[in-house]
């Protein structure tokens, strides 16, 4: 079952720790979505880049359970050049502590990458989300290095047009809206075959379950 409530997340954390050592799970962060973890082999890569490719900046809901969990720690969640306003009340309702958010806004394409690199390698962030405009392969490599250096997951939201570009990212996903949520296809996963798919049921009523009704 998919989860957003904090209790569920805690339970999930315990599960993830239980798998530690068995798999290479210590290099992975559970996404908080069971179906997604299954196709990702356990979760998001921990100190590496992941790319989420879509038509129109889609895919944020896939990350939210992870962000909710990471925001319990002391480090920043950096969002570099988000395409819209992250709507704070909705994030809070999904368990994200918004005071951990570090937004980098109104910056040029080059500044985005510079900021993302700084954030990734600083060691001060528990995750870095980037919406770059265009990225050269060399720049991607720099970011990948920075992620490793700062032991920090970097998630790049990119256009579907870049599907055919090569990438040093440990994980590449293609995301499309579907009637039942978001359809995810694994294009590349380090140490495994691509091609696995799943439907992550974002937007189902469960997504809105959350807290008791207290108007």
């Amino acid at each position, binding site marked *: 079952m998919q989860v957003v409530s904090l209790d569920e997340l805690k339970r999930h954390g315990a599960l993830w720790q239980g798998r530690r050592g068995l798999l290479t799970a210590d290099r992975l962060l559970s996404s908080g979505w069971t179906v997604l973890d299954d196709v990702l082999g356990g979760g998001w890569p921990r100190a590496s880049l992941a790319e989420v490719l879509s038509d129109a900046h889609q895919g944020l809901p896939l990350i939210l359970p992870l962000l909710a969990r990471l925001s319990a720690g002391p480090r920043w969640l950096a969002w570099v050049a988000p395409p819209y306003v992250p709507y704070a009340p909705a994030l809070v309702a999904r368990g994200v502590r*918004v005071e951990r958010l570090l937004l980098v806004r109104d*910056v040029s394409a080059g500044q985005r990458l510079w*900021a993302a690199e700084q954030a990734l390698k600083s*060691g001060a962030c528990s995750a870095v989300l980037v919406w770059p405009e265009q990225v050269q392969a060399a720049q991607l490599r720099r970011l990948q290095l920075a992620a490793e250096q700062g032991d920090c997951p970097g998630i790049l939201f990119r256009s579907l047009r870049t599907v055919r570009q090569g990438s040093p990212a440990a994980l590449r996903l293609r995301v499309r809206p579907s009637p039942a949520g978001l359809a995810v296809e694994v294009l590349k996963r380090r140490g495994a075959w691509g091609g696995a798919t799943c439907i992550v049921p974002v937007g189902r009523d469960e997504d809105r379950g959350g807290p008791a009704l207290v108007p």
Partner: protein
Amino acid sequence: MLWLALYFPHLPLEVITRGRQQAGALAIIEKLGGREQVSRCNSAAQAYGIRPGLALPAALALCTGLSVQRRDRAREQQALHGLAAWAYQFSARISFEPSLLLLEVGASLRLFGGLPTLLAPLQRELEQLGYSVRHAVAPTPMAAGVLARNRPDCQVVMQDGLCEAVAPLPLACLTRARDVRNLIRHIGMDSIGDVLALPRAELARRTGPQLLNLLDRLLGRLPDPRPEWQPPRHFSQTIELLGEIAQTMALMFPARRLMVALCGFLRGQGGGAQRLQWTLRHRDHPPTRFGQGLLDPSRDPDHMLEVLRERIERLQFPAPVVAIDLRVDDWQAFEERSLTLFERPAQADQALLERLSNRLGEQRIRGLRCLADHRPECAWQFCQPGESVVPLSPRGVSQPPWLLPQPRPLRECQGAPQYGGALRLENLPERIEAGWWDGFDITRDYFVAHSPAGERLWVFRDRRAGGWYLHGLFM
């Protein structure tokens, strides 16, 4: 010993007015005996017939344009400490009474060459600081205080003249003890002199020993030790401006007052400042901070003001200023500061923030916080990253993680909103009606909508003006 008492009769008023050159009718109010009444008021208010003791509604009835401020004893106490720091240049023994400073000046008289040479600069600087003062000099601290309050400018240098100087004063100047004062009044007497003439033993029987003890301390027959004020390590003072200042150069007036206070403090410490930290506070914006560096340590107010003027001319601030702070902790604080830097757990955070801000500009590095408002536009705000927030019960469970900066109008076709084709709406809208009180009044029905492309959208219909809008995205 010789004590100089400095009494600040208008302190409650001046802690508020000293930031501005002129002010309209102003009254300081205080709650006494369950009712709000005027405690002090300025001359403009007096012209309307307002006087201390008047009930607030009565005062407002006399002058509808009256500004009213609540008396702030904490701030008065702070101001008195600031004055002590400044006065430290004249005497190393300073103690307090309410609205009054006592300086032991017997020792420093020799240094300054007599009372007049001490008093002249003292009074001049106090005026620059924005305080009016009454002074008196006497061989005991209590007598100096009593005289400053009741016979200003009285200077009794020798023990002999003391009795004569205080005798005509009403006993009320000396003690507030109601019993004692009532007794003296009820036997038809009034002054300290009258009381001194009463038979001592019989008086003691009726009033208890406190009154005689008080009289003896007043006249120096008993010692009267006072706790001594210790100078602080840092200089930090604030002037709250009465009203708001929008023009940069108007800030020079309160800045001068702070500078004079600083230089008095520095002289007292025998030091000089090299780095000044200024903070301008605004009503609804984060404060504007800037530093003022000097090539060499200085305690010359004019020089430092000149440097400040240049700095301030270029300064831009986002909103009118309501208060101004000056802080200096340079000359002995190096050790301590490095220590705190290492101990701070969030040091790395700050380093990243600073790096990003320096390169990209502070306004591009933002945090986010929730506000308690039903209107989506008003339910969040950019802020300093990491700024702590009041925890809120989550309200946005049916709301999307992405919000458009502006609602985007949607085309309508046969009453149905379009977004790449007709949108399909989930039923049971969320109706938000709020904002009648501040002019941003909305009344909207929010729906979760599905586009033909499969996206989930947050759209609303404006119930008043009609029309459909896209406001958020769930994907």
